[in-house]
């Protein structure tokens, strides 16, 4: 672990902007446009907003790529991408495909974002199925990369090996880790533990190319990961991720309740809360910057549906940084035969 994250740059490769789906998410377009403006102003990253110009409000002079349709959060992913060809999500993916944008960011319908990226940018040669890589915060180190976080509910061992390879490429691009380590999520450290999928994957990972496999980890290790990359199938990964999010939120709420319980606790809160704030910020999803779809021929960062302006700023920064670090080429090389 360790190693610094590559810092955001003041300019984009080729001067290309990051395409932001202005209509994606529960707080669109207001918070999304506000975040895009902040990203441009605070980070110096060029941004193009994608969506219906008459619905975006004040864009602060940002470039706008018109798109007349919107894919709703509850639209069917596959059919909506086919049906709504002039949607903000589809147009954002096309901007990347056509070389008009460096990367795309959306806080909208996750499945549709994935379908848009897959169908418009295309799959990288050799990739069986794209996977969603999401950062898991760690104390005193860069986050670990968990994948798949929900793109593929059912997986084969060969798919999980590719997730390991792609996840390692992502850890390198995003966190500057030179030789990322990989662990497999299971119900015990022993290779004999787990489902047939886990046991077969363990055997394959021991001999896999481009993978520094360190063995199995359990769910309790997620926040103290011994590896840079945590591999699992999309069903398990999504359950693990949502369990973590819910647990952390519950813990924070419970802590605040205790601090508000009587006068002595309130006095203690005045001392403790400022000290806890940086810790809370480290685990705040808004600051983490979204999940990346790996295995497509372009950079696609998917932010959570309730993203606010700060989350959009983080997602734009991540999209820019990993694109500038050559994420797509790294992933392509990671799955190529040696």
């Amino acid at each position: 672990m360790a190693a610094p994250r590559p810092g955001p740059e003041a300019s984009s490769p080729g001067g290309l902007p990051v395409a932001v789906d202005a209509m994606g998410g529960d707080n669109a377009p207001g918070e999304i446009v506000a975040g895009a403006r902040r990203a441009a102003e605070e980070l110096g990253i060029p941004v193009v907003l994608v969506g219906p110009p008459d619905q975006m409000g004040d864009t602060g002079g940002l470039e706008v790529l018109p798109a007349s349709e919107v894919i709703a959060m509850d639209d069917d992913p596959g059919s909506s991408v086919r049906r709504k060809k002039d949607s903000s999500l589809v147009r954002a993916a096309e901007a990347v495909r056509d070389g008009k944008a460096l990367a795309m960011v959306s806080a909208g319908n996750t499945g549709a974002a994935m379908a848009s990226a897959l169908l418009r940018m295309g799959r990288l040669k050799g990739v069986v199925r794209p996977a969603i890589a999401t950062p898991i915060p760690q104390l005193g180190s860069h986050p670990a990369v968990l994948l798949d976080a929900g793109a593929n509910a059912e997986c084969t061992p060969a798919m999980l090996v590719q997730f390991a390879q792609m996840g390692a490429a992502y850890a390198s691009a995003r966190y500057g880790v030179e030789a990322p380590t990989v662990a497999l999520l299971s119900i015990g450290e022993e290779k004999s533990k787990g489902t047939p999928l886990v046991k077969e994957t363990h055997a394959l990972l021991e001999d896999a190319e481009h993978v520094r496999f360190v063995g199995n980890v359990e769910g309790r290790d997620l926040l103290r990961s011994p590896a840079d990359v945590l591999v699992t199938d999309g069903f398990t990964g999504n359950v693990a991720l949502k369990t973590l999010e819910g647990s952390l939120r519950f813990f924070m709420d419970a802590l605040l309740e205790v601090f508000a319980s009587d006068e002595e606790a309130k006095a203690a809160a005045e001392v403790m809360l400022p000290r806890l704030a940086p810790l809370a910020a480290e685990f705040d999803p808004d600051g983490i910057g979204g999940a990346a779809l790996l295995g497509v021929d372009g950079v696609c960062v998917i932010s959570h549906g309730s993203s606010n302006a700060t989350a959009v700023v983080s997602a734009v920064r991540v999209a820019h940084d990993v694109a500038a670090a050559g994420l797509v080429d790294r992933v392509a090389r990671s799955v190529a035969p040696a």
Partner: protein
Amino acid sequence: MPAETHVEKGPLGRPEVFELIRDQLADILEIEPGSISESSSFAEDLDADSLALIELVEGLEEELGERTVGFRIEDEDLEDLRTVRDAVDYVVAKLGTA
């Protein structure tokens, strides 16, 4: 032949439709074309998920749209296509009526 239909590359017979579907599926699923037969089930034999099928549909529309204007696979018909044979039958029928 309907007015909106034209053929640029010559008509496709059933064997050519099967080859087209097989080759596109092999590319999408990263498997050998020889492992795909008409009786292959998308879900059970080929592990093709819904997005893989949509990739196939878009690929077929792009390829066949160059031959037959207006060729389209309707989303509501997708759930009826469970095997490669179903897809071949569907495309052959569509090409005959597109």
